[in-house]
């Protein structure tokens, strides 16, 4: 980190290599398309650099910082989209992120697998649960690390992840039932 504050471009490059895939994945489960995920990921790292340059407050945990920044950027993204649209967007569209376009080749390919089913069910969860599952079971962060990222207590994170898994299991049953009907 000190190399980053020392304006070492290579240090920034190393952080990018380490965190870009994770931040991309984190955002991917929050947005509708891959291109949105890409754009917002790029914005996260641009803003990170700006923040470091401003030197207003030291980043003590880059991991927690960059995830929080990603969260804020996604929220801002949906807010500005809501403002730009002529029609009102219901609040739940900010939380129930639509599944990646069914017409994309990629979606067609992955639809056949269990992974796709899980992903579909995941998208139907409320934001808080989806986020907990992404951080805990996809990214593999510990409860403590997640608590830092989400600025919650460890106890609260444990409860949320437990409930999230139960909610996902229920949702999976619904999704699988829907697929079988088709």
């Amino acid at each position: 980190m000190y190399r980053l504050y020392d304006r070492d471009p290579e240090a920034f490059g190393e952080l990018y290599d380490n965190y870009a895939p994770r931040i991309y994945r984190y955002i991917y489960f929050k947005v509708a398309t891959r291109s949105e995920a890409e754009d917002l990921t790029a914005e996260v790292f641009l803003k990170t650099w700006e923040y470091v340059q401003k030197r207003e407050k030291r980043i003590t945990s880059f991991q927690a910082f960059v995830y929080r920044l990603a969260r804020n950027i996604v929220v801002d993204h949906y807010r500005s989209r809501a403002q730009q649209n002529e029609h009102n967007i219901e609040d739940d569209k900010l939380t129930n992120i639509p599944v990646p376009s069914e017409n994309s080749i990629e979606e067609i390919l992955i639809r056949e697998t269990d992974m796709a089913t899980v992903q579909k069910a995941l998208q139907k969860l409320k934001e808080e649960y989806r986020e907990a599952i992404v951080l805990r079971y996809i990214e593999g962060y510990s409860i403590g690390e997640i608590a830092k990222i989400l600025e919650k207590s460890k106890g609260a994170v444990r409860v949320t992840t437990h409930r999230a898994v139960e909610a996902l299991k229920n949702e999976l049953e619904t999704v699988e039932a829907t697929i079988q009907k088709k």
Partner: protein
Amino acid sequence: MTTHQLKKQLSSLRSIKPDASWQKQQKEMLLNIVREEAMSQPVLSWSTRIENAGTAFETFFANSFKVMATHSVSAILLVLVVLSGSAGYVVSAAENSLPGDSLYKVKTAVETARLKLTTSPQSKVALEVEFAARRLDEVTALTKMGGGNSLKVAELVSRFETDLTKVAFTAKELSVSSPSSGVEVAKIVDARLGNYIYVLKNTSKTTDNSDLSRRVDKALIAVNKAETEGLKVIVNSDTPSDENVVNKLDVKIKNAEDNLKLAEARFKGGAKGAIEAHQSLEEAKKKMDAGDLKTAITIIAQVEDIVYKLNEVVIPEEEVNGEVLGDVSKEPVKDEVKSDVDISIGLENVGAPDSNK
């Protein structure tokens, strides 16, 4: 799908990655921006670069030596090694740490080391006053953070109370062995008391934890006692007392009157000697009007002790042999106590109402 299968499926979603060429392109674009901005900005000074390195060292240090930092003796040795190695930025990094942080033991070890290395009593008291103020800064910081820090705050408040009691004792001893030093020290202490009271009262307002409230009350008593001792030293010295001292004595008399009324209200039928205590305070006012501040402060101190004793009688199970017995809030508080405590014995010899008048 079982939970285990589900978790396995979820971890397989880690295969979702950004397109490799997109990632490479993005990285290049970002690094170009970073390089351009880095070149266009002024070169960082050495002091800034050392500060940057120090911050990183603190993080590395805190992680790598976390076990060592949990033991006070090791922490003291560590501090000495670090200081002698001129890596003082670790020590300065520890200065903002709070209880629970890995560097907090270093902070308190440095304080202990500084006290041990200080020989002059005035300097020692000045340091103790500063460290007591730090405990309250930590209380303020933890209170602002909120969320389950009541226990840490309570321990800090108790520690502050202990430290301040030591300071008041040192100041009193010093006033005997070296009166001029005693006055200097009393003034150092007196200058901080307003801030102590402010932080403690604020802490009391923001908590509903009964143990913490009790400790804050005890700490406020310690502050009041320190103020009284300090005023005694100043008033008993040969230096003329300024208006500030007179104002403080007026306020102390008023507070003593109010606290006495509150304390005696808990006793059925009043407390024995309360009338004499009130009369003594009237006597203290007369002494002040006559310029006899020494007698006035002595009377005030005695009445304050009576008030403390009265308040102790109301919660008699609180302390045994100096050990706190546990959560007092769970034990029934005795609201009404028979007034068999004779408080008038504290008023012998000094300022007692002249029965011949």
